[in-house]
């Protein structure tokens, strides 16, 4: 895995989330890679989770099927990018 590619993927995912969820007043660079996407971090909720699931399917053809898997994947941009990267390759 090339680090630069992984960094690009994280940036791409951040932008996808910002655009897909219509997040206002926030730039990709403002999002911390380790920050929690839900709850006290970025503050997304279950409605947003559904949209992220849909965005991943639409843009990368990736399906998330079970609860434990979803909880882990959605914990931060880093975990999300790692998951997408593994499925993309």
């Amino acid at each position, binding site marked *: 895995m090339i680090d630069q590619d992984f960094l690009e993927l994280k940036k791409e995912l951040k932008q996808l989330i910002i655009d897909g969820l219509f997040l206002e007043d926030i730039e990709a660079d403002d999002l911390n890679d380790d920050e929690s996407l839900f709850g006290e971090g970025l503050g997304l909720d279950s409605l947003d989770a*559904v949209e992220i699931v849909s965005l991943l*399917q639409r843009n990368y053809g990736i*399906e998330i099927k079970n609860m434990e898997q979803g909880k882990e994947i959605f914990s931060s941009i880093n975990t999300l990018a790692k998951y997408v990267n593994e499925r993309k390759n």
Partner: protein
Amino acid sequence: MKHKEKKKKKRGNALGIWFFTLFFRVAGLNGAYFLLYLVAFYYLLFDLQSLQFAKVYLTKRFKDLNFFSIKVKSYLLFVQLGKQLIDRYVSLIKPGFFDFELKGADSFSLMCNDSQGFILLTSHVGSWQTAMQGFKDIKKEVYLLKLGEENLSLKDKLKVDPDSAKIKSISPKQFLGGIVEVINVLKKGAIVSMMGDRSYGADCLDVDFFNGEASFPYSAFHIAAVEKCKIVVLTCAKVSSRKYLLNLENSITVEYQGRKNKKEQLRKYLRQYTNILENFLEEYPYQCFIFDNIWKDDKL
């Protein structure tokens, strides 16, 4: 808000179904209904939990009811529910026994021929389970988002769980209440049938419904907005002893206006749905089988 499912008594058993079958075989549908009139009277006297649920609905729907009116109307509710369970069983052992008239069949056929999936919103008004039989012959795959029936007698005899290669089920007891799988099959062009008035523990919104605020789950509307798919609201009324009217005319298109206050934005679409239910129950007041207290201001 989280809507808590109240633990309910199991009603119906194999012996009871055997008696109804016997009466049907000996004396036809009216014979089975005759037995039902007696059984419904037993429930009127002894099933206090059902009476409480019935009372909440009836006092909202009719207003200003006295003790006697509530009892009479509760009896009519129990009889209607029983009739639709009997009809369900009869239609399984004697396919073609009941006539089904379809409203909105043309637009529904067009949607079925489209590659896009859609949500079929069903409710505990009228007989959605009987209606489901009509979906075995359509081109699309149908998925029901529902828990398996816990009452084994009803499960075996009335086949309340899907049993066809075309009709499959998705359990709401998984990640995000099964929503991920719902999205997967919608993308593949399937029809997903969801209960519009049963939360299965999912988040709900309070909306106006028959002179009170009642809790309804909103996940179907959110999925429709995200997936840009339509919601078709299915109602199925028993209009005579051997005829049902399936109405597929009512559809709802959900669209978010920006990201802010999504839940609040969904409220107006939920209200469209409860309007459809209210209109149905104005016409068929005794075909309401929401045996669950969904109103906020009535504590049981």
